[in-house]
C-alpha cells in the first residue's frame, strides 16, 4: 500500500527530464517526436527479444547435441530447399515489420515544410552557446541575444544538477511549433535535448534546421553531443517551456533590458 502510493506520487510529481545517475531508459517525452522514438524503441525491442530467444535456443541446442559420446556420428545434411526458403522469407518479413514504422517516424520527424511560429538560433561556441531570437528585430543591430554558459562544478545552488545548469536558459512557449536553427561559430557541435527528441549537428558554414513542438511546460536538459574539444562535457543546454503569455512577457522584458 505504502509503496504503491509513493510510486504514484513520485510518478505524477517528478518527470524524468534530466539525465540521472545509472539511468538505463529514455528520459520522459516532452514532444510527439520523442514519444514516437520511444514507441519505436519498444516495438523493435519486442522483435529483438523474440529473435534473441530463438537464436539462443538454436545455439545452445547445437552445442549440446555436438557431443562425441551421445552422438558419435554427426549428421551429414548438406542442403534443404524448404528450410532455405523459410529462413530467407521469414527474416525479410520481420525486417518489414521493423522498417515500416521506422520510416514512417523518420519522415514525420522531418517537419521542415510546416510554418513555424517562432525561430530560435542556437550558435555553438567553444564552450558555450549563444541564442538569438531575431523575429522581433527592426534592424540588423538590434537583437535579442544572450550567451548560455555552464554553471561551474563547484558553484551550484541547492537543488541544481551538477554540470547540467546554465546561467541563461532558452525560453520557449509550450504547444507552439518552433524552428531551431543550429550553427556553430568555430568547430562542430551538436544541439541535443533528449526529452524533446532533438539532436541537431552544428556544422561550420551550415545552418541546420530542426523542429520542436513542446507539449508540456517544464525544464529540459541536454548536452553537446558532438565532441568539440577539452570542455565538451561542460557545455550543457537548458530549455524552459512556459505558456505563450509568459513567453511574450519574457520577450518584452528581454527587449527592454537589451535596449538599456
Amino acid at each position: 500500500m505504502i509503496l504503491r502510493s509513493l510510486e504514484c506520487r513520485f510518478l505524477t510529481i517528478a518527470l524524468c527530464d534530466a539525465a540521472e545517475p545509472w539511468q538505463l531508459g529514455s528520459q520522459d517525452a516532452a514532444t510527439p517526436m520523442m514519444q514516437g522514438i520511444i514507441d519505436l524503441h519498444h516495438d523493435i525491442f519486442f522483435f529483438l527479444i523474440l529473435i534473441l530467444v530463438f537464436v539462443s535456443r538454436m545455439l545452445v541446442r547445437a552445442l549440446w547435441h555436438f557431443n562425441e559420446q551421445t552422438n558419435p556420428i554427426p549428421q551429414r545434411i548438406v542442403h534443404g530447399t524448404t528450410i532455405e526458403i523459410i529462413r530467407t522469407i521469414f527474416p525479410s518479413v520481420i525486417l518489414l515489420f521493423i522498417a515500416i514504422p521506422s520510416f514512417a517516424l523518420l519522415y514525420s520527424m522531418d517537419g521542415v515544410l510546416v510554418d513555424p511560429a517562432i525561430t530560435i538560433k542556437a550558435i555553438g561556441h567553444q564552450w558555450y552557446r549563444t541564442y538569438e531570437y531575431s523575429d522581433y528585430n527592426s534592424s540588423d543591430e538590434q537583437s535579442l541575444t544572450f550567451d548560455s554558459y555552464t554553471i561551474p562544478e563547484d558553484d551550484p545552488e541547492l537543488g541544481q544538477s551538477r554540470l547540467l545548469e546554465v546561467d541563461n536558459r532558452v525560453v520557449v512557449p509550450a504547444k507552439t511549433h518552433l524552428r531551431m536553427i543550429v550553427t556553430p561559430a568555430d568547430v562542430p557541435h551538436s544541439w541535443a535535448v533528449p526529452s524533446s527528441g532533438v539532436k541537431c549537428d552544428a556544422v561550420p558554414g551550415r545552418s541546420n534546421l530542426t523542429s520542436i513542438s513542446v507539449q508540456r511546460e517544464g525544464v529540459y536538459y541536454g548536452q553537446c553531443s558532438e565532441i568539440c574539444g577539452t570542455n565538451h562535457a561542460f557545455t550543457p543546454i537548458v530549455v524552459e517551456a512556459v505558456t505563450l503569455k509568459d513567453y511574450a512577457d519574457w520577450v518584452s522584458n528581454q527587449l527592454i533590458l537589451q535596449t538599456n
Partner: protein
Amino acid sequence: MAAEAKAPSLAEEYSLPPQEAPVEKAVEDKPQEAESISVTNDETPQADETATAVEVNPETSEVQEVADKSEVEDTNPAAEETNETAEEEAEEKPEIKIETAPADFRFPTTNQTRHCFTRYVEYHRCVAAKGEDAPECDKFAKYYRSLCPGEWVERWNEQRENGTFPGPL
C-alpha cells in the same frame, strides 16, 4: 450554490483542453494577443482571473456569473488607474507579434544555409529595385533576420560595402 459553482471552475482552470488542430491554434493565438493588449497590468492577479474566466466561458454557462463578477472587479482598478501610469506602462512593454519566416518549399531539407542566403539576396534586390524604406521590402528583411545568424549578416554587410559580396545582387 456559489461554492458548488466555483469548484468545477477551479478544476477546469488547471485542465487545459486538448488543442491539436493547427487552425484552432491560429484562432486562439489572436485572442491571447488581444488579451495582452487590453490588460495593461500583467502583474495584477485579477487580470489572471479575467483570462481564466474568458477561457472558461465557452465551456460552461454557469460560470458566466463568475465571469461577470470578475469583469466588475476589473472595472474598478481600471478606473483607479491614472492616464500617465497607463502611458508609461505602454511605453515600457513593446508589443511583439508571434510570427516568423515561413517555410519555403525551395528548401525542404535540414540544411537551411541557402534559405538564409536567398532571403538575404531577395531583400537587397528588393531594396535596389524599390529603394530604401520601401514597405514591401520589410517582409524580406524580417525573413532573413529570422533565418540568418547575426555574424553571417554582419559579414555579408561588410562584403557588400566592400563590393566583394558573392551573391547576385
